[in-house]
């Protein structure tokens, strides 16, 4: 009986692995295209010049970011190149301080501190004094305040590093994450 022959199962192992790897490769090509800045799911970096909100989309039946009219960051308009450089620096700050080892990004990371996917839009910023949200977030990063049970450490973030991180958070909040997190900023009663 051929099923008693180990070589039958070896052939199956090779074939299965090769087939699945090929499918993964094809899906990867398509996915990389869609997640490049300017692609279907990820806006270009100059989106930081615009207003970004989080709304329910009845067509997709999920919540998602919506890019609106002009809403300048730190009072200036960034070209694509400038925005790209600023956001690249923001990512370097995030990595150098290992933010992902306390926080999550798109739910990935550590669970000790809040998720930062939509942090740009968090209602919490309303409690801080300051002319604009970008300014509030930058000041917080340079001098974190204790918020309830969890305190953020002071990581020695400079002014220009803070601005870069704010730009990063604003750009990241515009990414379509298939509805994650659900109902951000729109809590409902437990009975619904």
């Amino acid at each position: 009986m051929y099923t008693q022959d180990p070589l039958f199962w070896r052939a199956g192992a090779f074939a299965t692995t090769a087939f699945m790897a090929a499918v993964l490769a094809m899906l990867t090509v398509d996915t990389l295209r869609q997640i490049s800045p300017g692609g279907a799911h990820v806006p270009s970096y100059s989106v930081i010049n615009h207003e970004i909100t989080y709304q329910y989309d009845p067509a997709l039946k999920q919540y998602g970011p919506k890019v609106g009219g002009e809403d300048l960051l730190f009072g200036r308009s960034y070209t694509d190149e400038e925005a790209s450089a600023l956001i690249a620096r923001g990512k370097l700050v995030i990595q150098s301080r290992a933010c992902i080892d306390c926080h999550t990004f798109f739910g990935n990371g550590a669970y000790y501190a809040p998720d930062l996917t939509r942090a740009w839009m968090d209602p919490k910023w309303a409690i801080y004094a300051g002319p604009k949200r970008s300014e509030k977030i930058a000041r917080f990063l340079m001098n974190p305040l204790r918020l309830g049970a969890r305190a953020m450490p002071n990581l020695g973030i400079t002014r220009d590093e803070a601005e870069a991180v704010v730009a990063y958070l604003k750009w990241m909040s515009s990414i379509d994450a298939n509805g994650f997190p659900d109902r951000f900023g729109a809590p409902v009663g437990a009975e619904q």
Partner: protein
Amino acid sequence: MTMYRSQHLGLKYLAASTVLFGAMIVFGLLSALYYVWPGFLLNVFNFSTAKIVHINGLVLWLLMGFIGAVYWFIPQELEREVEGIALGELMFWVLCAAIGVVVAVFIFVQYGGANETSMWFINQGRKYVEAPRWAALGIVAVAGVFAYNVMATVWKAGRSTGVLTVLILDLVPLLVLYLDAFPEMTNMSQDLFWWWWLVHLWVEATWEVLIGCIMAWTLMHLVGASRRVVESWLYVEVALVLGTGILGLGHHYFWIGTPRYWLGIGGAFSALEPLPLLGMVVHAVYDAGTHHLKAPNRPAFYWTLAEAFGNFLGAGVFGFMMTLPQINMYSHGTQWTASHGHFAFWGAYGCGVLAVLYLALQHTRGAETLDGRAWRWSFALLNIGIAGMAGALLVAGMDQAFFERAVGGSTWDAFLAMQGRPWFTESMWARLVFGVIFAVGYAILLYDLFSIGKKAGALSPEALAAAGR
């Protein structure tokens, strides 16, 4: 008993692995403490630093265990010394030194500025691969020599075996995937996309095949399983694990900005991943049955059984609970994930490394049989500890999914309110208590590893005579 040089090197790796296991536990307990002691060591030694050492310790103790196991088994497999073993021995010390430096920098330097110097010498700040680039290069060098040792030995021997061929074929993607430890990508979606190739295709694909090979050899040496049987089974395992796991990668692509089709593909293949794990459990029960739960080396036998059961429970049951997108939307990024992660890593890999440790010990102690009381205590406490931690984190995670995500809308206020809820805080305390139980189990394991098989009763008459008693 005479051993090959490679087996001596294997023992060094297994010993270092055991030490790193302990370090991982210490920093794990420390990480748990931050949850129950607000403001603990703030700005002196933050949670992120403790966690970094904990998770890097996790990856390294398991990897060193795997490498040690392979160095242990290969010369017996091919009945010859490993090729280039002197280089392999050197790289062991290089790796230990590198780990020491990296951990010291993590602990005493912690952070640098937003520049390439930080990336190259301090902290790359990507989960599991925080080690600076110079160390990542070092790991590539060590792994490269290891792969050379394995492949050159097969080449010089002029023959291979089924298990060894599967291992070598597996080593190639395993090493290539590590290349993701280097780049710094601005686009977080792209960063996470490739990062998951490394993490998932390691722990849910190439590592599964690797531990499958190691367990195949373990069964051959532990209970005299026939080569034909274990190889046949290994091929089935590879087909099912990679057949479900390669596209199961998609269960990490639900929410990172990737296209919607990953919800269907990732969810479906991920949901199939427990099926081969049930097959492994059945195989484990079959082996236990044919040997009436007896083996000359009882701790190795029981840790082998624990590997199958732990894998099924931690990865299969706990994974399936949270993998469908409609659930995962709310469980994602909560303690629920940590619950599954702790249980799965332990069941799938930790138990396997301990089985090999005891197998090697029986050989080095020259014992005909290996049994005792201490290993049973350590076995019980380690498994109760991990199950308790996973259970506590599950309660906390479900509470988070309910109140922080579904009800609270995942804002900072929802998160902060959650951290103070009674079920959450009590779960954090329970996790710490079970972590201490796990640590006690480890301490007894250490005692047992030093003492088992050394008593006169465990030696065969021939060994006793040779020892001059």
